[in-house]
């Protein structure tokens, strides 16, 4: 196997293993659109990264953190509904990102690579980024798993139980920001959210506990990466979209499997 392909596989699997468990929280907390907004905003991070000539992932991470902090504060004192706020943040910063990119006439930026990813161009340094960021996320997720789950189930109950609710919410936003920054090169900003939510949605049908679902989501994501890369090699299709298409395929196939959750919940209601 070529080395570039091995690197692509390592990068893809690294992302999938983190995005799965984190994606579970994204769908449990109904934050898919939040993730989408952050990843749109991330293009501004790319633009600023190019402008100031810093590491692009770092630029994306900083902008994603800033935007999620801004949204966090606005949502606490909200006058507008959440989806409106998210829409403004997403498209406002996307527009700003495009403008900044267009101002730099001397620099030719391959926009498509950021929007749709370029997993086959992953370097060793990128892999270090992915595994450092990913491992940090997984450790934090494991340590605060219980508190995060409590906050997800019922905020006020968690608060009464003494969980630092705001801290957990902020940490979650931080984790999503990190994943967006490191996953950008794999599937691209437009498709990152799919890597968070589709494997989690696939795993839901096979899970009876939150932990099973988190694990299953990691596995489903890894399978999608392998199939997607293989298909991309076989038919010369773009790698990022192929991975997402593979995940979607898994999701459709999962419908033919009897639904564990549904079977149980039919008894009561």
């Amino acid at each position, binding site marked *: 196997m070529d080395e570039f392909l091995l690197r692509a596989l390592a990068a893809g699997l690294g992302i999938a293993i983190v995005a799965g468990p984190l994606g579970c929280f994204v769908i449990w907390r109904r934050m898919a659109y939040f993730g989408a907004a952050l990843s749109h905003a991330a293009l501004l991070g790319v633009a600023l990264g190019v402008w100031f000539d810093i590491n692009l992932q770092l630029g994306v991470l900083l902008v994603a953190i800033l935007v999620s902090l801004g949204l966090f504060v606005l949502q606490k004192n909200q006058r507008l509904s959440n989806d409106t706020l998210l829409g403004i943040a997403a498209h406002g910063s996307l527009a700003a990102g495009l403008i900044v990119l267009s101002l730099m006439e001397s620099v030719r930026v391959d926009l498509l690579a950021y929007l749709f990813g370029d997993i086959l161009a992953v370097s060793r340094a990128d892999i270090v980024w992915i595994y450092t960021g990913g491992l940090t996320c997984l450790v934090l997720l494991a340590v605060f798993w219980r508190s995060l789950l409590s906050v997800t189930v*019922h905020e*006020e109950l968690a608060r*009464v139980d003494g969980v630092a609710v705001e801290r957990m919410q902020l940490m979650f936003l931080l984790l999503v920001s990190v994943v967006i920054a490191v996953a950008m090169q794999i599937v691209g900003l437009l498709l990152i959210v799919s890597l968070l939510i589709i494997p989690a949605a696939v795993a*839901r049908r096979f899970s009876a506990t*939150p932990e099973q*679902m988190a694990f299953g989501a990691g596995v489903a994501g890894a399978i999608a990466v392998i199939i997607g890369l293989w298909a991309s090699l076989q038919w010369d299709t773009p790698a990022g979209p192929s991975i997402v298409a593979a995940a979607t395929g898994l999701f459709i196939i999962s419908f033919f499997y009897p639904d564990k959750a549904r079977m*149980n919940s039919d008894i009561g209601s």
Partner: protein
Amino acid sequence: MKASTTLIDVAGVSVWHNQHVVLDKVDLKVHSGEIVTLIGPNGCGKTTLVRITLGLMSPDSGQTHRAKKIRIGYVPQRLHIEETLPLTVERFLDLGARGQTHRFERVLHQSGAGHVLKSPVQSLSGGELKRVLLARALLQDPELLVLDEPSAGVDVVGQSELYDLIKSLRDEMGCGVLLVSHDLHLVMAATDRVICLNHHVCCDGKPDAVSQHPEYLTLFGSRLQDQLAVYTHHHDHKHDLAGNIDQSLKEEHANHG
């Protein structure tokens, strides 16, 4: 009645929200072994007062004293868990009281939901869910039980059963109980003291005395008749509560009657 301690002492508490008075110099005391019911129309400040009692928010002015290291069991009005989150009742209880699995069967039995331990939380009926929430509160060995609209989302038969249950739990454990309700006729039998709230404390006393109080009658008089005559009114009202009510709507309701 044996000597009781003061669990919660809220004195002269005021809260403003967007230049509106939500609570105006409100006093509230709950002693151990007593059931206090907070009653008032939607948007009268009941939930705000409960949040202050629980320590979830602090008032703009006034004093709050809680007994030292008091164990509070809180039963929220609603629990919505996404269908996408696989969670059994057992796991839900575990989130509130880690490592006490051996007690789960017993508290569920106590709260009358002994059969649901292994069921997904999403499969429970409104009444079962309330009982599971109550069981979760019981796991704290509460000195004070706080129940926000325990009858919301529960069918009519279940409602009176629930109030009987709360009363017998109080008798068993000697804890203080703070109930929030919007209809007095339901809680009459199961309460020692009623505080009628409409931003300020309108009246305060034994249930039969409060039900005769002129301020209470102005607030609730017409509605009580509606409830006796046309039952659908009651149902409309509950649907209102099940959703999130915004502040402007609340204000309207508060002026009603």
